[in-house]
């Protein structure tokens, strides 16, 4: 492959140890004319425990005209590289384990065949040294073992995950079987220990000699193996100069290091396929580095464990997940890959197994595709389907785009439309008028309710009114709870209350009445 050889030449020129972050600054040989089409990479990033829908869901909006939700702020700068899917998932209550199986296997009943990432790896991962990477952050959760895996092999059995960035780094960039410099080191070590052991053998007793024979035969086997590699003339780039990540004391540092490594592995074409879980579903992790003392799963049940502090803590965790997604996208964009960026030649699937993290509904599951996949996807859009879509449809569509010949996948035989420029049936909401009026005593406003964009003031709500400044809802916890404001987020309501007008903006501080325009009752949607 011309492409790889030219890359190696470049890397040799760089010479000394390269700390991973500095690689951002480099401009690879991509500018050199090269007619070969770059490979497309596939990655998934799994966010555990669903979301708090009022802060995640996009309010209103159309395919090409929409406003990112509060939780999407951390990666808002990548809007043009995103294909935000909505109304994904068609199950009501779903267990952690089932919803996690569905994430890459289409359906929880699909337990006897490979997850879609593995099918893609079979398709695109054959030319690289590593077929695929299956990664995570956290130990196994034996209580519901399915919560710990998203990637499954051809028999539908879980694939062991790796969590340690150093181990993954070493496997990719320091394996003596693949990298000439490490191989040289190993050859010299084998020489030395072999010589020493022979010296020892000359003075040894009978039993000692038997042991040393055993030892020396292993040394000879190891030498033989390296010799065979040499004669096979395995070409591989000089990758041993990258600086190994170190001092990874908390989750944040480990995830950043792992994302760095994934990007580097894609860029060096060491692998083309990776799945990464930011945590188990049902995760009991404690985000102490964010100053949080409660377990993630407990907080994710934000309704049954309701308190202002708990919601704030949960949003902080979710925001961290979004920041990691942003980190990954920024990283992939920073690498030049032939005539474009690595992101342009990748498909990143970011999402969760369930939507609403408290009542475990698997509808409106967070699902975003990022990157153009070398022209596979049309990004910069918000695609909200008219009906709830089975996850398997998305998988089937992606499989086909990656060239995997499948007519059906995960209990489903229709590919999801709308990922490229194809038509799709978009969600239609009845039209409604928005207005605000005040009779001096009370204020009444009609329009779509939303949470504050700023998660630091997540107790503030707004109702957007056409051609006017949004009405601000700043009420007590009692009112918030009694009128179930969070539940109505994203939908049009008529709301009456008292308050004042400050600098032209209406601010409602006490609620007296709330009516939903299209009459949905609390508990049927959004909690």
């Amino acid at each position: 492959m011309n492409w790889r050889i030219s890359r190696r030449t470049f890397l040799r020129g760089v010479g000394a140890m390269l700390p991973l972050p500095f690689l951002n600054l480099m401009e690879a040989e991509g500018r050199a004319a090269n007619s070969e089409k770059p490979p497309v990479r596939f990655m998934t990033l799994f966010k555990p425990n669903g979301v708090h829908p009022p802060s995640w869901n996009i309010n209103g909006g159309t395919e090409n005209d929409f406003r990112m939700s509060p939780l999407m702020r951390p990666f808002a700068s990548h809007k043009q590289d995103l294909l935000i899917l909505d109304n994904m998932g068609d199950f009501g209550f779903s267990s952690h384990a089932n919803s996690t199986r569905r994430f890459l296997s289409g359906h929880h009943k699909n337990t006897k065949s490979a997850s879609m990432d593995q099918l893609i790896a079979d398709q695109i991962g054959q030319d690289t040294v590593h077929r695929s990477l299956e990664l995570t952050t956290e130990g196994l959760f034996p209580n519901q073992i399915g919560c710990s895996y998203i990637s499954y092999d051809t028999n539908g059995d879980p694939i062991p995950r790796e969590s340690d960035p150093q181990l993954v780094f070493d496997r990719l960039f320091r394996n003596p079987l693949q990298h000439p410099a490490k191989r040289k080191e190993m050859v010299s070590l084998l020489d030395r220990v072999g010589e020493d052991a022979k010296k020892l053998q000359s003075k040894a007793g009978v039993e000692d000699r038997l042991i040393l024979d055993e030892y020396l035969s292993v040394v000879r086997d190891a030498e033989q193996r390296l010799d065979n590699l040499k004669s096979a003339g395995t070409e591989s780039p000089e990758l041993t100069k990258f600086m190994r990540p170190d001092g990874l004391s908390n989750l944040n540092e480990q995830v950043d290091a792992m994302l760095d490594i994934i990007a580097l592995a894609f860029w060096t074409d060491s692998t083309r396929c990776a799945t990464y879980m930011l945590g188990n579903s049902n995760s009991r992790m404690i985000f102490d580095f964010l100053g949080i003392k409660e377990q993630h799963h407990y907080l994710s049940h934000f309704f049954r464990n309701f308190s202002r502090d708990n919601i704030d803590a949960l949003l902080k965790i979710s925001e961290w997940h979004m920041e990691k997604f942003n980190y990954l996208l920024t990283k992939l964009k920073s690498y030049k890959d032939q005539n474009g960026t690595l992101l342009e030649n990748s498909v990143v699937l970011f999402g969760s197994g369930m939507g609403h993290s408290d009542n475990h509904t698997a509808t409106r599951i967070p699902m975003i595709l990022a990157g153009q996949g070398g022209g596979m996807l049309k990004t910069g859009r918000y695609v909200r389907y008219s009906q709830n879509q089975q996850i398997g449809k998305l998988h089937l569509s992606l499989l086909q785009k990656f060239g995997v010949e499948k007519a059906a996948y995960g209990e489903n035989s229709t590919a999801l439309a709308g990922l490229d420029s194809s038509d799709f049936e978009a969600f239609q909401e009845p039209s409604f008028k928005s207005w605000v009026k005040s009779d001096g005593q009370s204020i009444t406003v009609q329009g779509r309710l939303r949470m504050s964009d700023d998660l630091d003031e997540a107790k503030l709500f707004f109702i957007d009114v056409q051609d006017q400044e949004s009405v601000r809802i700043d009420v007590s916890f009692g009112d918030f709870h009694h009128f179930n404001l969070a539940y109505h987020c994203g939908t049009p309501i008529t709301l009456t209350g008292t308050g004042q007008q400050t600098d032209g903006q209406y601010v409602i501080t006490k609620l007296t009445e709330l009516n939903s325009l299209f009459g949905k009752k609390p508990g049927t949607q959004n909690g």
Partner: protein
Amino acid sequence: MLLTALMMPAVSCADDSYEREILPLLAKYCVACHSGDEPSAKLDFSIIKTQQDANASFETWRRVVELLKSGEMPPEDEERPSRLDIENIETWYRSRFIENVEARPADFRPRRLSAYEYRNTLRSLFGFDLEVNIIEAEQTIAEKSLVMKLLPLDPPGKSGFRNDTSGNPLTTVIWDQYSYLVDAGLEAFFSPRHQTDLEAYSGPILVSGVSHDQAETLLQSFMTRAYRRQVENSELGRRMIHIKEAGSSEEIVDRLKSELKVVLMSPEFLYRGLLMRGNPGQQSVDQYELAERLSYFIWGDMPDAELMRNASSGNLSKSEIYRSEIVRLLNDPKSRNLAEDFAVQWFSLDEIDHVSDNVPYAVALKSQPLDFVKYLFAADRPLLELIDSDVAYFNTLTSRFYPQDRKQLARYRKPKGIEVEIVPNQQITLQDTSERGGLLTMPGVLAMNKGPVLRGVWMLERLLGEPLPEPPPDVGQIPQNRNGQSLTFRERFELHRSKPACAVCHDKIDPLGFSLERYDKSGAFVTKSGETIDTSGQLPSGEIFTTYQELKEILVTSQRDQIVRNIVQKTLSYALCRKLKYYDRPAVDKIVNELNQRDGTYRDLIRLVAESMPFRETIIKGESE
């Protein structure tokens, strides 16, 4: 060579009583079935040709005598030996393997470190653990040790213990993992994070970097520790050559790393005993070997500086110093090895991991026997308290098993936002919970052995030290009650196994196992009134009991000798990292007698094992043998 031959015990050379007296009887009554491609009970007498062969398979004879005396063998329809023949065989057995055994140590054999010993040794050498980066949530399981994650788990050796690695050779797979681990270790060792660990060898390192002198100091002290003995100057010089060529500090560090890697990949580091020197024949092991035997026995780890000092000055041959070193090692927190490695394997406590999917609960169940065994050693308790003690360890997750004494537990409040968490145990002196106390009634131990047969087998093998043969292949299911029948499970079971071929083992297993029938699968004590649960039984030795409490009384009195003997055998076998042989019998007898003379304790046990002849001596094989 001549000297060696004279010192060899007479039993293994001159004695031919097996050939003269026993072989003809076997040929007449046994060999027809017990030979060929598929010998009955996998026992082939035709390959046991000499007294020496008979010695090697010494455990067979106990069973042979037992089956002959019970009339179980030869089968009814075959010709049977006369009473006199049987008496002759028994006399031969007792004389050769019990009464007139001449003691000798085992042949000297180097042994590769087990994965567990390797982990501990590497940690002691570097001063830090090699850890896997993984987030450990409260309810997840994760291997935190990089060594344990990467090295294949050692299969138990013939002794039943993992430190008996003689049948587990080095392979290229293990080689690659060693190499990886050493790289990872050295990388961390020379990183700023671990500068103090590095300086413990080299002395203070200045901004200017590592000097040649420091490199030499480091290399010498590191090699001494890694090889667990004084390093010859020529050996050090050979390694220093490579470093002396280095110019800059960076280059020195690079060379040092490769030299240290050579050290850590060398057989002298990976195997115990390769550097011990001696002349052919029986002798005391040298001081370094003794130090190493002691520290791997008690700590599962290499000797520390003080033990090494005492070895290099020859002090370990002074009995009072050797004794005080034993005490010092036992007082060190590292002696938790005796619970976490030795006792875990002895009592198969890893099985408790599978009792529950709820990690904090499974951890709580397993921590009970671990904390209890640690207490037996730390508080120096008498041996039989293993099964008869009023000291228990429990926490909020296991307190329900101690309803009458749970009020003694300090109040526990779960922190906000934590669903279930791992909680330490509290030591409780049981006052009103007569159904608990001792290893056998710990909930985790009861729950890991589900049903009376597994419980009985476990007690026989682990506590009484009676290994059992495999059950016959065609045992079938225990029949359900037919119409009109209303037999209890036990009654149906006893009918099922009444055939002589089953009974010979089940007569031993069942009374033990059924005595615990009041404890259900979860280990809970069933107190429902009106329910009749038959926990009575009779041991093959004749004692009768109706409840587990009564059986326990029997175990600590009339079965005491057998239990103590088993405790000694297991401990000695672990200490020697090998299966015991017939010639270890006198050493075991000696320790058992001393322990019995004064209600010996767990520290007495450790000391007596460490002072025993097989532990302190060895035989080096000569060229011609």
